[in-house]
């Protein structure tokens, strides 16, 4: 029953939203190009799916996204482990992080364009910036919250400092690092469009900008919906990975 509800109830929501959308369009207040109908959007998606453009854009976007996201993780996780472990280091850099963190990656765009020119790199850097802070902060918090009894046990068995980090702190912090990676994925995905709005001629962000320039508003909406759907898919995938890790680690959830 619960499983059925999980799919059935959202289905009702989507049906209602689509119906309302179509109803508003049917009133005929706005021109088609200002307010395209769901049918036009579906046709638009079919069109770019069949001529292959859609898959190319998705492929390029996912490449840029994962490059930026994984680079962020590769820098933020080790940095967070070290900063979380060495209390004084974190005391020193925490204020700097807190100043930089609220600056939207979009504010960096002019400088990123100047420094990295055009092509994949600026988009990758935007994603990297967006994913970096959530991963860093959750890793630092994860290390700080490692149960002291694990450290006592490790110490009791004569574990060296390096091995304590490798054998105890990293695995103990791992589920929380996964949580941070999950949050960062959602945060960074939002900035995909921004990253692809300039200096590139491919990707889902470009698809939206390009469609607007040619007044194909149904393709703007198609791009938006695809970004949303892909975002949901990615979120669910990492969410189930996170759940798997937590079950392994014995979190009661």
């Amino acid at each position: 029953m619960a499983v059925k509800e999980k799919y059935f109830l959202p289905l009702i929501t989507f049906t209602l939203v689509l119906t309302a959308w179509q109803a508003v369009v049917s009133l005929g207040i706005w021109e088609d190009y200002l307010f395209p109908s769901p049918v036009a959007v579906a046709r638009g998606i079919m069109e770019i799916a069949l001529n292959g453009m859609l898959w190319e854009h998705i492929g390029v976007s996912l490449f840029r996204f994962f490059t930026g996201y994984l680079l962020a993780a590769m820098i933020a996780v080790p940095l967070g482990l070290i900063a979380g472990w060495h209390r004084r280091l974190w005391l020193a850099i925490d204020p700097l992080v807190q100043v930089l963190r609220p600056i939207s990656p979009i504010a960096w765009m002019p400088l990123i364009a100047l420094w990295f020119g055009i092509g994949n790199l600026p988009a990758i850097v935007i994603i990297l910036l967006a994913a970096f802070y959530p991963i860093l902060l959750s890793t630092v918090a994860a290390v700080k919250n490692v149960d002291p009894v694990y450290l006592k046990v490790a110490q009791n068995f004569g574990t060296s400092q390096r091995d304590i980090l490798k054998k105890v702190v990293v695995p103990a912090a791992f589920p929380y690092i996964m949580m941070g990676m999950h949050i960062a994925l959602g945060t960074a995905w939002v900035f995909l469009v921004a990253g692809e709005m300039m200096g590139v001629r491919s990707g889902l962000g470009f698809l939206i900008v390009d469609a607007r320039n040619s007044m194909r508003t149904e393709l703007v909406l198609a791009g938006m919906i695809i970004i949303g759907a892909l975002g949901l898919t990615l979120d669910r995938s990492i969410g189930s990975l996170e759940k798997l890790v937590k079950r392994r680690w014995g979190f009661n959830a």
Partner: protein
Amino acid sequence: MSTRKKIKVEDVTKVFTNNKGEQQQALAGVDLTVFDTEFICLLGASGCGKTTLLNLMAGFESISSGTIYIDDKPVGSPQPQYQTIFQNYGLFPWRTVEENIEYGLEVQGVSLAERRKIAANYMEMVGLEKFRHSHPHQLSGGMQQRVAIARALAVEPEVLFMDEPFGALDALTRFRMQEEITRIWQENKQTIVFVTHDIDEAVFLADRIFIMSPYPGRIKTVVPVPIGRPRDRTDYDFIKIRDRIYGEFKLTVKKELDYYI
């Protein structure tokens, strides 16, 4: 029990400074001696400093004044040959039962094949062979504590420090674990320092019971338990010693009350 002194605590005090900067004396002038292969209990209400004393002996905290010797060497940092068992087990949840038990050996650089063999031996000792591939959270509290005991025993420690190890278990499981630790101790001949606030538990387990009193923590009385093992909780001698300890805590009902009944 031999007459060789394994642990000597000499005039030990411990002062904590809380986050307001006030000093609180947790232990004042504690003296005690534990003989080799002896089983002692530190018994007292919360706040009497029994866990603090254990932590000092195990090397987890520093002494404010006085000295603690184990094997005639002053205690510094925690050592693998002196193992501590914690109330909340301290098992690594990401490792299986087998991998948890192997941890200490792994740190010492023992080969995998050898580790497996030793772990199998201790899994059998605590009756967990069937659960070697389980993760700690799949086990009951009593089973988890058995894993922690097996993990500590795997490095062949000379001393076991046990900090209310059965405090989180239900009464029946606790009884069974008390029997089990007695058997393990008789087989392996460690020196055991066991912290508890459970009077029955102390009488069941210990060769000698050190009763502690609070504010500041110190040792009030030492009660020897000259009863052979296995011990019977309903035995006359058992109850006599238990009643004496109840008396020490002023928990016995005053005899005058008989008059009114």
